[in-house]
């Protein structure tokens, strides 16, 4: 049903395109510099530099992943504006293949960037404090899951909106998606249904727990990642439906 060759073609092109974005390299370099320089903050933090490095590392992984993931909204919208999408979709290329190709291209970039920053931060933590912080991998993995969801959200919004509204809406949902915890605590059934149906980023946020050395089991982290992947499939399915109805004027 899904022609993987078509999808891979779009995936590779998308990856090539986003990879040529110079600002991304600057961001990666600044992230590592910022974390690396955190040991200079010993006096500023009254001895909390270890926590600072861990938490800012976790936050910066999120930031890098978020910016990489959001690129999909700009990429699809730019394709439509510059009529690249018209050219490609006027050929025997399915719209679903096009969207999935875009998603996988950006998801690949997200994966590479998160992996790079994770390795960098873990190396810095090891260099500064000795020993390997293996629980940081839990942070990185769960962040990767949430960024895959952000990318799928970006695809969804870009399938019917222009770049800026799509990017802003993705960002808003990402921010609000961290606050749905209260819905689960409400006794009402509707609250719980919303908690399950809405994109729930708080299920993937282990930064605070791990930062406070409250242990999280690998089972829960892996389940959260599976949740992110399954929810991304739902988002991509919805994107495909919406995009198939869209008039590409």
């Amino acid at each position, binding site marked *: 049903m899904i022609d993987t060759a078509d999808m891979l073609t779009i995936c590779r092109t998308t990856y*090539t395109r986003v990879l040529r974005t110079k600002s991304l390299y600057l961001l990666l370099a600044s992230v590592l510099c910022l974390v690396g320089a955190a040991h200079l903050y010993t006096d500023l933090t009254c001895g909390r530099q270890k926590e600072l490095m861990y938490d800012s590392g976790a936050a910066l992984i999120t930031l890098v992943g978020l910016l990489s993931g959001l690129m999909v909204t700009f990429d699809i919208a730019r394709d439509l504006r*510059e*009529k690249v999408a018209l*050219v490609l*979709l*006027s*050929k*025997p290329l399915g719209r679903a293949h096009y969207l999935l190709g875009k998603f996988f291209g950006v998801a690949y970039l997200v994966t590479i960037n998160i992996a790079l920053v994770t390795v960098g931060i873990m190396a810095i933590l090891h260099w500064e404090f000795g020993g390997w912080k293996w629980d940081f991998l839990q942070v990185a993995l769960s962040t990767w899951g949430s960024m895959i969801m952000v990318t799928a959200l970006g695809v969804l919004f870009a399938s019917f909106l222009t770049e800026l509204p799509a990017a802003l809406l993705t960002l808003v949902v990402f921010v609000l998606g961290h606050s749905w915890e209260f819905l689960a605590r409400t006794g009402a059934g509707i609250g719980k249904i919303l908690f399950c149906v809405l994109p729930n980023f708080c299920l993937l946020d282990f930064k605070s727990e791990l930062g406070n050395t409250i242990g999280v089991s690998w089972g829960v982290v892996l389940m959260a990642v599976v949740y992110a992947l399954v929810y991304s499939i739902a988002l991509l399915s919805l994107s495909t439906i919406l995009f198939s109805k869209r*008039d*590409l004027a």
Partner: protein
Amino acid sequence: MNAVETQDLTKEYVTGWRKPVRLMALEGLGLEVKPGLIFGFLGPNGAGKSTTIKMLLGLITPTRGEGFLMGKPIYDKTARERVGFLPEDPSFCAYLSSSEFLDLCGKVFHMDKATRRKRTAEMLALVGLTGKEKTRISEFSRGMLQRIGLAQALMNNPDLVVLDEPLNGLDPYGRKELKNILHRLKREGKTVFFSSHILSDVQEMCDEVGILNRGRMIACGPVKDLVQAQSVKLQVATLSMDVMQKIEPLAKAITREHNRWSIELEDTSKQAQVTDLLREGGAATVEVARGMETLEEFFFRQIARNSRERGFPVPGDEPAEKPGEKIVENKG
């Protein structure tokens, strides 16, 4: 099997949320384009040309009606396997070089690497971009963009080439080259379906044209059948005053040129009546010259007539000056 066929193809847009406004972009289009022809699709801005093309290529969903490309329904993506398309004012993948972009198009058509390489070189040579293989598309001029656009449209050696305003942005040399390419495609038995505003080129190139006005097809057929003989000039050696007086109300002008009388008629319908009068008066007709209408004149005439019939303002008409009203030039 027609190259392009539509039946009652209609597109209605609904805009606005609180107070929806309906806009009929295309209304019941029925069209048949036979294979091997160059078909010109004409109409003023907003007539529905691009909408039709995009519906044919599956980019826009029709509100109702059907369309077929090379016998296959337009919603079937395999229908586009034998079609090449150049959109209006394209910018393409600016981050790719021309050869990379053509390679990408080849991949979408599932061509193998060797074929892609061969076709890329051929297409770049065809559109005169040999030597620009490594140049990024972002560095291309508007004319070069049209060329690379044409190259990608022809990458799969299509049976039907759909071009939306292909002459836009081309210099006279570019236009000439494009016309040559289109004629060559015709010779190879391919169908070319294109929209344009440059009517002189359309008249020169096209076998058939279709004219759209405000979403409706108002004229369609072979160019030679559509454009009419509009005026007639009769030349006679002698012309008596008596005959002249009889002819004068029917003629636009009667002049004497080099010992011949020249009678200009505005309408060919009066030619028989004038000829009869001349014959009766003993004046022998030396020469009959017919003034042919251009496609542009035909286009304007049809658009004006259709607009008036449907109660729309005629495009390009200046607002009439009311009696006693003076246009005051604003010198501020």
